[in-house]
């Protein structure tokens, strides 16, 4: 790891060096060995001092571990920082690290110098050809992905005049993902358990060709390739294969993080409600996909998790939810909905969470016209509320 480096030499040193040079001339004139020694001694000290400041930290390596640890709120964890010094010895430097406020240091007297960061500083000494590991314990406090934003060294000169400041040039790869905390969501059981049983199998037009359930008598509308020839021979009557009727029982959750030009104030509660839904879906083995209108650089221009279920999917969902922060750039929600209905696999159930405008209603109407059932996740005081969303189709265009 290379460092951004600034050296701050004591401003009086050049001045004293100037006097030392004058002293050399004086010493030659008055023929004094002591004066010459004094002047040369100081000049060499000044030179060594400058050389140290220039070279200090040059071969100080930081092991940038690519580690991602996951925590629930209240869990305890540690940052690991490993340094190896192959250059000049570092004596009583000050090591400062800055990390996000999602995790907080265990000590009570922490400082938050920048509004969203914790700053910690320790004394640090490392001799040549030595390595040191520093562990910084922390407690997960808040949903989010915490990173060490910056590592800074203030290395004082060994000879005492000035200091060199080293700042980490690259991102520290260590991450601490703090999962969101679920809040109770009313209506989640009622909406999902009832509807699930009614709709899935009988209504579907799709059949699982690998799951035959039996045969029935042939009717003229059946296609020839559906005829079960062996069964027909056995019964001496034409028989048609019957397959298991399957329907996609997937859900899609779309979260609107924006509120006009800013991020919605209910962000945390909405995310917590979605977390509750995610846990519920995990227990009931319900597949679901997730869209959040936070801009990304991928081919899908917003945060999107394709449909899935199970433990891995739950982890992905929780991590995605943890990654949403108020500092994200949002994408227009309508744009996301339009992209969803055009390019992504549409799910039969659609949950909308967040603010909805008239344009959003129109887009949602479009989605419901394609066969999806709409639900809305609202926040009522400290709870989430999942209810069916009814949008009346108006004859006139909404202006």
């Amino acid at each position, binding site marked *: 790891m290379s460092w951004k480096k600034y050296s701050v030499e004591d401003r009086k040193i050049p*001045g*004293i060096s100037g006097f030392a040079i004058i*002293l050399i001339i004086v010493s*030659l004139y008055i023929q004094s060995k002591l004066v*010459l020694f004094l002047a040369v*001694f100081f000049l060499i000290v000044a030179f060594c001092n400058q050389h140290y400041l220039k070279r200090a930290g040059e071969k100080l390596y930081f092991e940038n571990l690519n580690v991602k640890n996951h925590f629930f709120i209240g869990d305890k964890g540690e940052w690991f920082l490993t340094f190896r010094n192959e250059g000049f010895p570092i004596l*009583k430097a000050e090591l400062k690290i800055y990390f996000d406020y999602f995790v907080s240091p265990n000590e009570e007297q922490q400082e938050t110098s920048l509004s969203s960061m914790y700053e910690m500083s320790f004394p640090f000494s490392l001799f040549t050809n030595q390595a040191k590991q520093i562990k910084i314990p922390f407690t997960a406090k808040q949903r989010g992905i915490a990173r060490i934003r910056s590592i800074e060294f203030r290395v*004082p000169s*060994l000879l*005492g005049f000035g200091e060199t400041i080293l700042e980490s040039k690259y991102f520290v790869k260590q991450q601490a993902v703090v999962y969101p905390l679920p809040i109770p969501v009313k209506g989640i059981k009622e909406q999902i358990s009832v509807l699930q049983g009614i709709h899935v199998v009988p209504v579907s037009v799709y059949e699982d060709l690998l799951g035959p359930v039996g045969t029935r008598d042939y009717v003229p509308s059946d296609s020839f390739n559906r005829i079960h020839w062996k069964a027909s021979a056995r019964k001496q009557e034409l028989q048609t294969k019957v397959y298991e009727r399957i329907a996609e029982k997937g859900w899609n959750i779309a979260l609107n993080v924006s509120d006009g030009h800013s991020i919605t104030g209910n962000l945390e509660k909405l995310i917590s409600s979605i977390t509750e839904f995610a846990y519920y879906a995990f227990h009931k083995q319900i597949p679901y996909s997730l869209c959040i209108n936070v801009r990304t650089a991928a081919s899908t221009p917003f945060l999107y998790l394709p449909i899935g279920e199970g433990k891995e999917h739950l982890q992905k969902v929780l991590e995605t939810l943890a990654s949403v922060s108020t500092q994200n750039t949002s994408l227009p929600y309508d744009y996301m909905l339009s992209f969803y209905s055009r390019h992504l696999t549409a799910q039969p159930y659609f949950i909308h969470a967040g603010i909805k405008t008239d344009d959003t209603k129109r887009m949602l109407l479009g989605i419901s016209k394609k066969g999806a059932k709409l639900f809305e996740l609202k926040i009522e005081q400290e709870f989430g509320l999942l209810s069916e969303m009814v949008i009346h189709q108006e004859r006139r265009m909404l202006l």
Partner: protein
Amino acid sequence: MNRVAAVTYQFILELILGMLFLFLIYINKNEFPPILLLTVLCISSIILFSFLLAKFRNNGKWLYFVTILPLILLIGFQTGLPLYGGLGLGFLIYWRGISLFDDVSERSEAILLLLSFIIGLVAIIYSAMSKYPFQSEMILLLITQLVIVLLGGFLRKWNSIQTDKAKFAVYFLKVIAAVLAIGVIPAFLLKYIQMILFAILHFFVILLSTVSAPLFGFLEYLLRLNGNEGRKTTINADTGLPDEYQPPAYEKTETTLYILLIVAAVAFIIFLYKKKFTKQDFSVVNSAVVSVSEGAYGSTQSNLFRRRMKPPEDIIRREIFELEKYASKLKLGRLPFETLEEWWQRIGLSGSSESIAIYEKVRYGEGRSSIEEQTIMKTEIHQFKQQLKEIYKSLKDKKKKSKPN
């Protein structure tokens, strides 16, 4: 304990500075200043005083007057120190002790070192001039100051670490030993260095003389042409008069050299101070970079940027640009947030609305100026310049008038 050590360390540095100053006074008397007595008295009493302060807090101050101050006076009296001197010393130790004890934060020793070097340099030159017999003691004091600063800085850091203490100590001692060894070499080679330096100087003198000789020859030739042949030198080498006393020529050179050296030293100090002040401005910007917060433009930066700005290509805009420059020379410049009209109104220029319209068209619209418009602007700006001069003069007069009041 650490606090007592820190106070003593700082006080010793200040004491050495004071002693150098004392030397400066005693050079004139050609005596050795009572520094041994001072050292013993001051160091022992500051250690005792800081102990008292550490142990009894505020009461330590009163205890000082009861215990240490009488002791100082007594020892001073025994060793022949005048009473006022003893009292002065006592109060000095009291003052320094309290102020150093209250604020033990790391102070920069470099400033003390710088002051020591300034006083030391003057004292060395002065002592060499007046052939002071205790010059070497003075230089040793300066060397001690330097060594104490180096050692103190290291020990303070070294004391705070737990592991690898021996390694760091050995490393530091090695560095210091190497520096000392390198420092000793030129001291032994003083004669040779001197020889080389004077040979170089000699060479330059010869070079200068060979270069200037033809010039002087030419001058002489010119003088001869002007009819000065008849004039002869009045100095006769063999006048037959008895040898009169003439002050040795080298003494004059010596004094001039000393004066030159002192002037150079003073000039250097002034230069340093100026540099320091200009650097401080810069360091404000620099420190902003260091302390992570970004995006703050210091005032100095924007000034630099403005200064380096190129004049615009368009003729009318360039004219206005020149006018702004001219006005800023007369201290009537346009402020960065002012529109042209506001500026003119503020300083009292009578500009026509037509010219403002032309400027705005060129500056903010994408239109180009016609030759007619250019001539209008040029004549108007010419008038403006004259108006500016008048405004400037009247302002100056006003200031002059207001001053005596």
